[in-house]
């Protein structure tokens, strides 16, 4: 029993939801079938998964040293 094919355009539209495991089972099945046969979309998928991982791990915004103290003082002085 084959799944109904979907287009690359549809796949890109749902790509982010797929990465978040936020697609209905039927759509998920169609997308997985598509990834098996479409190298482009597979590449975009893997790149996107990498991006999510990189952004989560790689971007750090450290609080400037003394931030908490300065903030606390501003609150107290108000």
């Amino acid at each position, binding site marked *: 029993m084959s799944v109904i094919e979907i287009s690359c355009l549809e796949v890109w539209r749902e790509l982010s939801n797929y990465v978040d495991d*936020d697609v209905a089972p039927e759509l998920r099945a169609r997308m997985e079938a598509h990834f098996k046969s479409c190298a482009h979309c597979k590449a*975009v998928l893997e790149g996107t998964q990498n991006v999510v991982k990189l952004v989560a791990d790689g971007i750090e915004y450290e*609080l400037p040293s003394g931030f908490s103290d300065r903030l606390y003082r501003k609150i107290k002085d*108000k």
Partner: protein
Amino acid sequence: MGSPATYSDANQAELLRRACEGDKEAFYSLVRPCERAVYVAAMSIVNNPADAEEVAQEAVLKALAHLTGFRAEAKFSTWLIQITINEARSRLRKDRRHLYESIDEPRTDEEGDYTPKDFADWREIPSEALKRDELRNALKRALATLPLKYREVLILRDIQNLSIEETAEILGISQGNVKTRLLRARLQMRDALAPGIDGSWSSGKPEYKKVRPW
């Protein structure tokens, strides 16, 4: 000045009650666990530490001034981040350097599909090829190329790990809109970071090159 990292609903209610009565220590106890999230939200918009800190302070003081307007059933951190984002956007509007960056919400929903621009096979995670500093800089540079409305969503979802629902609430947009913007943000980041034809990653150059401008 030690505080718990998180607090329960009951704890929030109690701290809020005391804060509304003018207890500044209680107010700071509410704020302290949100400091990083507030700072990160500000940074995502104004993109420099000095301005971000000022925005954070202003947002916290605004929250203090409007505490009685806060609905106690809601999450304090969500409310505070919302104030921070509005404050950061206001600052951006005043700053002439960003005169041409679109800050205000579009009237209509997102239209048109985003087409990935680079189909290069990018299976290797660049973090293995680059040193930590280079990677962090490359990521921040790529992030800075995103339109503001996409950057905000990416930061709230993929760095702060807020839910779609919370993100929608903070930004005042629908969940569908959050998902669309997140999709575009992630695809644009991917295009900005993808190896590209000249193979910048494999040559080990510290600066990545964006192959295709948009």
